[in-house]
């Protein structure tokens, strides 16, 4: 039973990374990014391509893990830039009282990304070479712990803590909360709301890149995987409560544990169990387990 709980918790770490970018964009701009899962898959494919290029050019003098580290060092800032530009040039134009334009545009982006990835990489699943890190494990108190899942969990924990600190303690976080509360008045204070929104999306895309990188290392990715990842991200955010980073972390953990319990009962029941818990939370506590309370 402990084994199941532990594996579920570690799986929740990955779901947390899927979800935090969504949480940032919704929290700051009230924008629901339908293409979240597709951007994660796109980041995974970008990581696979970058890693292959690095390995080919440095010709075996560095290992696969060093290539992954170099890939991350390139991919994270590039993703920030892509998120910043996407918000500045496209998504800012969709913001307003009506949420429909941003939903339609991100839905459109989702279709474009899926088809572009299929065109570029074919429909075959691929993964990021990790020198066997994805299968390595160690034993602790009779429990078998995977090194990569633990690494992902620690990264999710660190990202959640960092996001919470950034939003609660820094001047940038103050600006994020202010434009989210009242865009007009924030602009009256001298804030450039469009720039603040672009910074928030840049930040969300760093999280998306990290999620894509880990997803590519942990398992295979295919161009059509995005919508399933979006559903996991949505479920984690809704279970945890909109606009709360620790809530999203807990929501992801609940989703991971539930799926793991389902997988144990029957290999085909894991995802279904997750959806059931998500629906139960929607019915019993639609505001989520830890909703952010606003004054």
């Amino acid at each position, binding site marked *: 039973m402990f084994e199941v709980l532990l594996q579920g918790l570690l799986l929740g770490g990955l779901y947390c990374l899927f979800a935090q970018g969504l949480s940032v964009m919704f929290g700051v701009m009230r924008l629901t990014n339908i293409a979240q899962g597709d951007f994660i898959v796109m980041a995974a494919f970008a990581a696979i391509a970058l890693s292959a290029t690095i390995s080919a050019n440095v010709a075996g003098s560095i290992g696969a893990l060093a290539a992954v580290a170099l890939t991350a060092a390139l991919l994270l800032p590039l993703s920030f830039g892509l998120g910043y530009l996407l918000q500045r040039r496209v998504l800012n134009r969709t913001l307003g009282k009506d949420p429909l334009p941003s939903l339609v545009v991100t839905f459109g982006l989702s279709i474009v990304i899926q088809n572009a990835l299929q065109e570029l990489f074919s429909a075959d699943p691929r993964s990021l070479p990790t020198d066997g890190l994805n299968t390595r494990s160690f034993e602790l108190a009779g429990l078998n712990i995977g090194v990569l899942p633990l690494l992902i969990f620690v990264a999710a924990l660190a990202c959640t803590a960092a996001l919470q600190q950034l939003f609660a303690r820094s*001047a940038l976080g*103050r*600006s994020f*909360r*202010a434009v*989210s*509360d*009242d865009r*007009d*008045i*924030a*602009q*009256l*204070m*001298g*804030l*450039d709301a469009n720039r603040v929104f672009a910074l928030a999306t840049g930040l969300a895309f760093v999280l998306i890149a990290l999620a894509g990188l880990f997803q590519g290392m942990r398992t295979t990715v295919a161009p059509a995987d995005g919508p399933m990842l979006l559903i996991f991200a949505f479920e984690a955010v809704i279970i945890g409560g909109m606009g709360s980073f620790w809530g999203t972390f807990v929501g992801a953990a609940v989703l991971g544990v539930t799926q793991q319990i389902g997988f144990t009962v029957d290999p085909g029941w894991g995802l279904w169990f997750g959806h059931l818990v998500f629906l139960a939370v929607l019915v019993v506590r639609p505001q989520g387990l830890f909703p*952010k309370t*606003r*004054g």
Partner: protein
Amino acid sequence: MSQPLVETTGLTAHYGDAQALYGIDFRLMPGELLAIIGANGAGKSTFLKSLTGLVPVQREAVRFQGQAIGGLPPGEIVRRGLAMVPEGRRLFPSLSVEENLLMGGLAQRPGPWNLKRLYGLFPILEEKRRHPSGALSGGQQQMVAIGRALMSNPKVLLCDELSLGLAPIVIREIYAALPTLTAEGMSIVVVEQDVSLAQAVSQRVYCFQEGRVSLEGDSRQLSREQISQAYFGI
């Protein structure tokens, strides 16, 4: 006679197809405390919003220190020295009292106003600085809204409906702080529905009616009848 600090000439403003202001001519002199009165829907708040860039207007229709500023982005206008206390306070509910005040300082204009000095003007705010702004009483929230505007060290403070929803004793406390500001050379415009209060605190009064200036004059010299006629149009 010195140059007006803020001047509008033939200012018009629209919300979509609906016209809200019809050719407003207005002057605010340095160090002056001026009141704008008028019934609901007279265009008072729209006028303040058009001065601060929240409502689009023609560039030449608004001048600040002789320069055309009409329609500039709100952030640019606050950096030049016009700050607004909006109607209904509109504090940032997810920010604490002190964080709300710090937001006002983003314009980074040099001047005497900082947190320490603000806490001197409104000591209760220092006591409550870590509280969520939504947890304060209406009067305390109004102090935060004024403090937030002062943090930008403005030359002109535009106050929209300061007394709305507040107890008389709190209104007196808040209005008592304004002469301290004008004594230092700041100019203040208060939009106020309470006519006798507006007359008592200001040097000059503008009365708005249906988007037009229906009366303008020295607060002490305007009679009750003149104001009634300009206010209600009867």
